[in-house]
């Protein structure tokens, strides 16, 4: 590191920076803030978790205060707009209680090594309904068609998954829909943000364990981890925009980013098995010897790509279950037995590796898989014991990602990722068309996330990226933004508003400043 104190270059840069500061200051004085053609007098934010201010895996008072609609409303306030109302949580712990049970965990904090759940009990009780309407109508977890669903805020439906606990807290009635409660406030200006995100996110975060419902136009049949059909999405989105703009309100919509760029999917490497790890390295020869007959069988069957080999010099990919592979348990069993394996072993191996392969760079391991990889899969271990396999052998055969293929939910395979991408692209076509035909401002969240995940994105003096913990943009849960990220998002909204409605928030310097927003919250804050 070269510390160049009073470095001439720095000094010169300092002067230049100073001049720029001066000119900015002058501009701030000279350029008067103008709303252009926009009317911010009654701003309502409709959306999902980003709109709510969800961060570090939870919603809590501080995160709500830093929600992007709240940051936006503070800029609108400079033009005399009223304050944004939000359904405030009961604490800074986050998480929810229903019937005495914790149904949503407290927030995450950084414990010095990584994200950890705050050791505290949530105090926000879902059934303590605080009927709105609130101008921040952000409901974490809401999919596009949920925004139109009556009863989505029925406390009674929360336990069965028929209703959303966050909407239940604020719904004007148990039968109300989010859109109805929003329209009841007669907004003059709205943000309809990240609609469509949850329509693919559940599928992605569950490792593609849900169903791609493209072609199924009945959302009532969808599971929570399914991909919403693009036509269903288009129907919902068009209805939402039509209703919101029906009384002449102006607004901003966002498109849907490729959620697979988020650190939830990019943090755990596909090849995490490090030969220098003392718990793993010494076992490699034994493992390779064990896999040798299996690999010979794969070769014999003409499927050498299914071979499992661990390198003694470089990190090796995990072994995964891939449901798209043909089930070859029968052939495998025959070949293995033909190769001289006893029937029980042949049976076990052929079942265990019927649809497996080592991961490739195109497979995305979800964030929670990091706690699973190379640990004992107890279910399978017990299953083997029940079959009479000796404990030592059972233990060797039940190591997640090494001897036992990682289950579907831990891996978003390349084809599953493709489903997410196709759906996202389809949603975005709808969003862009609707925005354009309705004259709404559009924030390109997709482009912003792509930029952040590749070159990094500049916000004041920070260059933020999508690294977990350190990137500054995405919070500890790997999906939602940090307060600083939401501040950046708010500024992107202002840019879009300026472009569409002729206001001048950016030019007038009426924007959020990165330094005022943290990247996480202290565990002391409760």
């Amino acid at each position, binding site marked *: 590191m070269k510390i*160049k*104190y*009073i470095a001439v270059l720095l000094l010169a840069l300092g002067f230049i920076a100073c001049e720029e*500061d001066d000119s900015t200051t002058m501009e701030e004085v000279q350029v008067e803030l103008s709303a252009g053609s926009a009317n911010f007098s009654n701003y309502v934010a409709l959306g999902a978790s980003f709109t709510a201010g969800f961060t570090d895996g939870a919603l809590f008072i501080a995160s709500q205060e830093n929600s992007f609609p709240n940051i936006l409303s503070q800029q609108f306030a400079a033009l005399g707009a009223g304050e944004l109302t939000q359904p405030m949580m009961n604490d800074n712990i986050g998480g929810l209680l229903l019937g005495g049970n914790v149904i949503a965990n407290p927030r995450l*904090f950084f414990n010095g090594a990584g994200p950890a759940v705050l050791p505290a009990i949530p105090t926000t009780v879902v059934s303590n309904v605080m009927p709105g309407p609130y101008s921040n109508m952000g409901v974490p977890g809401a999919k596009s068609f949920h925004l139109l669903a009556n009863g989505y805020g029925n406390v009674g439906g929360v336990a069965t998954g028929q209703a959303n606990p966050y909407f239940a807290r604020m719904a004007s009635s148990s039968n109300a829909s989010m859109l109805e409660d929003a329209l009841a406030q007669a907004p003059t200006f709205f943000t309809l943000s990240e609609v469509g995100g949850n329509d693919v996110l559940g599928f992605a975060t569950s490792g593609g364990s849900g169903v791609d419902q493209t072609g199924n136009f009945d959302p009532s049949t969808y599971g929570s981890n399914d991909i919403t059909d693009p036509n269903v999405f288009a129907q919902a989105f068009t209805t939402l925009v039509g209703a919101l703009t029906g009384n002449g309100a102006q607004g901003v919509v966002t498109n849907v980013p490729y959620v697979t760029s988020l650190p939830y999917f990019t943090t755990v490497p596909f090849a995490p098995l490090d030969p220098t790890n003392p718990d793993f390295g010494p076992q490699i020869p034994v493992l390779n010897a064990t896999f040798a007959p299996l690999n010979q069988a794969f070769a014999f069957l003409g499927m050498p790509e299914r071979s499992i080999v661990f390198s003694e010099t470089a990190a090796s990919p995990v072994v995964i279950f891939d449901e798209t592979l043909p089930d070859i348990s029968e052939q495998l069993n025959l070949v293995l037995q033909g190769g001289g394996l006893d029937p029980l072993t042949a049976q076990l191996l052929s079942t265990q590796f019927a649809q497996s392969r080592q991961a490739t760079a195109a497979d995305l391991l979800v964030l929670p898989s990091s706690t699973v990889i190379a640990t004992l899969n107890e279910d399978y271990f017990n299953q083997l014991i029940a079959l009479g396999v000796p404990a030592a052998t059972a233990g060797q055969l039940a190591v997640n990602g090494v001897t036992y293929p990682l289950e579907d939910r831990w891996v978003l395979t390349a084809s599953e990722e493709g489903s997410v991408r196709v759906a996202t692209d389809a949603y975005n076509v709808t969003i862009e068309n609707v925005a354009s035909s309705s004259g709404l401002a559009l924030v390109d969240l997709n482009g912003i996330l792509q930029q952040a995940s590749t070159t990094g994105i500049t916000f004041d003096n920070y260059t933020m990226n999508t690294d977990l913990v350190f990137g500054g943009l995405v919070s500890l849960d790997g999906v939602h933004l940090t307060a600083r990220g939401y501040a950046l998002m708010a500024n992107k909204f202002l840019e879009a508003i300026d472009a569409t409605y002729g206001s001048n928030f950016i030019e007038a310097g009426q924007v959020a400043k990165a*330094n005022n927003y*943290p990247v996480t919250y202290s565990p002391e804050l409760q």
Partner: protein
Amino acid sequence: MKTIVFVFCLCLSAITFAQTNVSGNVVDESSTPVVGANIVVVGNTAGTATDFDGNFSLLVDMEPPFVLQISSIGYASQDVQVTSNNQTVNIVLVEGSELDEVVISASRTPERIFESPVTIERFGIKDIRSTASVDFYDGLENLKGVDINTNSLTFKSINTRGFATFANTRFMQLVDGMDNSAPVLNFPLGNLLGMVDTDIQSVEILPGAASALYGANAFNGILFMQSKNPFDYEGISISMKRGITSQEAAGDNPYTDFGIRAAHKFTEHFAAKVNFGYLSGTDWAANNLTAKPGTGTSRADINYDGINVYGDEVSTDIKGVAEALVGLGVLPAGAEALVPSVNVSRTGYNEADLTDYEAESIKADWGLYFRPWANDFEISYVGKVGTGSTIYQGASRYAIDNFFLQQHKLEFKNNNFFLRGYITEDRAGDSYNMLFTGININRAWKDDNTWFGQYVGAFVQGSLAGLTAEEAHALGRQTAETGRFEPGTEEFKSAFNATVSDPSLLTGSKFQDNSKIYHGDANYNFSHLWDVVDVQVGGSYRTYSLNSSGTIFTDADGPINYSEYGVYTQLQKKFDLSDNVDLKLTGSVRYDKSELFDGFFSPRLAAGFTINDQHNIRASFQTGFRNPTTQDLYIGLDIGRAVLIGGAEDNPARDIRPYDLSPTGQAVLGAPTIQFDGQGAYTNSYFASSVQAFGATGDASQLEIANSSFVKPEQVTSYELGYRGKLGKFIVDMSGYYNQYQDFLANETVIAPFYGDVQLTQTVPGDPNNTPLAIAAIANEDYQIFQTYTNSEEVVNSYGGSVGVSTKVLGGFDLGANYTYAKLDFDTEANPDFRTNFNTPEHKVKGSFGNTELFKNFGFNVAWRWSDTYEWEASFGDGQVPAFHVVDAQINYRVPKFLKSTFKVGATNVLGDEYFTAFGTGNIGSMYYVSWTINNL
């Protein structure tokens, strides 16, 4: 000494002189003896002064007839014809004006101010007595056209006609013919090592260039201080002054100034004198905590760099630190995204913690004077020593502590010639650089890498613990500051002591030097031999011996010596154009040659018309030049942000420093390190600003080759027009000038790559993209930033003028006022990188009102000065100097019967509005004093 005298006597014994003895008495119109009246022989430097009874006697090596000129301040001078040996002359002087005072410096021969060919100011015994300033040196500020920049209580920097910093190398100060600038600094430390009040016979200031007579560096002007010769002024005189300095930042502090002069004429052949001066006080404290431009407003700002706070200049972009820490594995990969790209400065120490502000001046001089034939031929030896503590503000602020200067002069002269040689030696003593003291005390308790590393580490941790950026910065600073040596603690003191005794600026701040100047001067005045034209010839020779042991100059291998000489001649002729109009023409030319530069001719032409002995109109043209200073030539100093590398042709190669190379550099040069000397700065370099532009745009065409030229002398051409006269009751002296400066000595900041030519013809070996080597060097930080010393191609003009009017009002009150105008004529907007350091107000008005004899033996004087606002521009920092009013006042009472005493009570800056004359210095407060002067009436 005896041997020298003996030898000299032998040499001259073949020459015999005609000798005429004259004696007499001088009184005023009320028959009161005039004490200290000057008696000089016209066209000759022989002279004496009257004693306390107004009597004088003078031995002149001329045969009658000749003319004696008798003058005293406040009286019109008179000429008396001497026609015979042992003639007694009794003179009654009538009250006159300052224009009648006799000056020597303008033409190197006595003449009345009225007839001087160029602008000249004089400050004599009477002015010293009546000045309201605390001492004579400060009193000079009331003269028209004179600026005093106050560096500290004891270090004032005199200048005329603009372009001055405290390192005023354009202005010369001669004490009895000796240049008293310190060899290492090339400028005088005010009167710190100068003269005591009671030994001063007169002070003359020649504003403007005077190289034609005085050679190099007589550029913006010269200050001449003339001491009293013990043959003419005998006895013991003492001046004692006690008082207080009063300043908001430093409070009220005692001030003592004591001076004693003892002179005795033992015989007609031998006289001696001793002077001793002691001054002690507390300096004006500089506690300006205002942030330098672009660094916020206070320490709460992360990159604050306070004006009088040192150590906070060390600043870096913490994003770069974070990246480095990630590279070292200290921070987890990716953590740099949490760190903003902003500059953060270390926490500094206030100036008050780095100096005791002790102001002290101790000076002594002694002289032995022989007149082997009891005539005007005199051999003298004068020794001077001075030591003191003050504050000097250059590129940084220096605590000048126990700085020691000594001078020894041997001089032979008579009324027609002089031959003198002297040596000046400085020792920097315990002086130190306060900026680097702050920086290196900080480094003593924690090196910069660790400090910034801890800052950034804590910043990241704080951010991840949920702190806002502001809180994270505060945590970063708090963490990094752990272990700071707090002022007042033992550990601080020991780190301070270690720092100020270490001359390497990378670890310490000691100012180490022991350089010398050897100088010889000779002059012969032919006017006693030839009446047609007054002719003088003279010359000088000087050798510098720089000896900083490699700490300032590139003299690690031994002292650097170099020499220069000059010869000159002057012709002066008076014409009586009519009964009423005289014309005096003066022409001078001087040739100077330094071993480092080509020779120079500096001419001067002046014409003066005198009409009715009431009006004098003068016009002159002259040139001046200034040799690059010792530092301009031979400095080799790493100040961290750059290596300062002097511009003498043989200098850069001597500055050799080791550098670590980047992996790329190692591949190119095949070695892990490089020994790189300063030649690259002058032969293979880019302007730093262009490299910065290149860095911002990535456009290699932005790179601009610097290759600074070696330094050469700076030149000025000066045109001047003036008028002096008596208009009724008013005495008027006015002048205007136009100056044109060429080859301004200037600095360039350049970047020299360790490999690759700046023309970009060499490319990285084996690189398919043909990346130029020099660009690779810059990209990999394989370069050094240099500050070179060179000349600017810009021509800078300035003009100005001054008007002084004085008169008597209300029967006996002296009223004087003067106005000085100075204007820089230079397009600063078109040349944003060029710093002229003009540092002079456009308008300055001064006035004084007093009466030396309000009633018997009682006098008073009030002086007022107003300065317009102006921009101060210097290496320490730039800023505005606001307009200020200053009023000084004194009353005095003389008690001739009691030890010929004068008592004076005075106050400076009685209005109490603190002001400053330069950006970065302490505010100037008020001084209140009482003085008792014995035997210096």
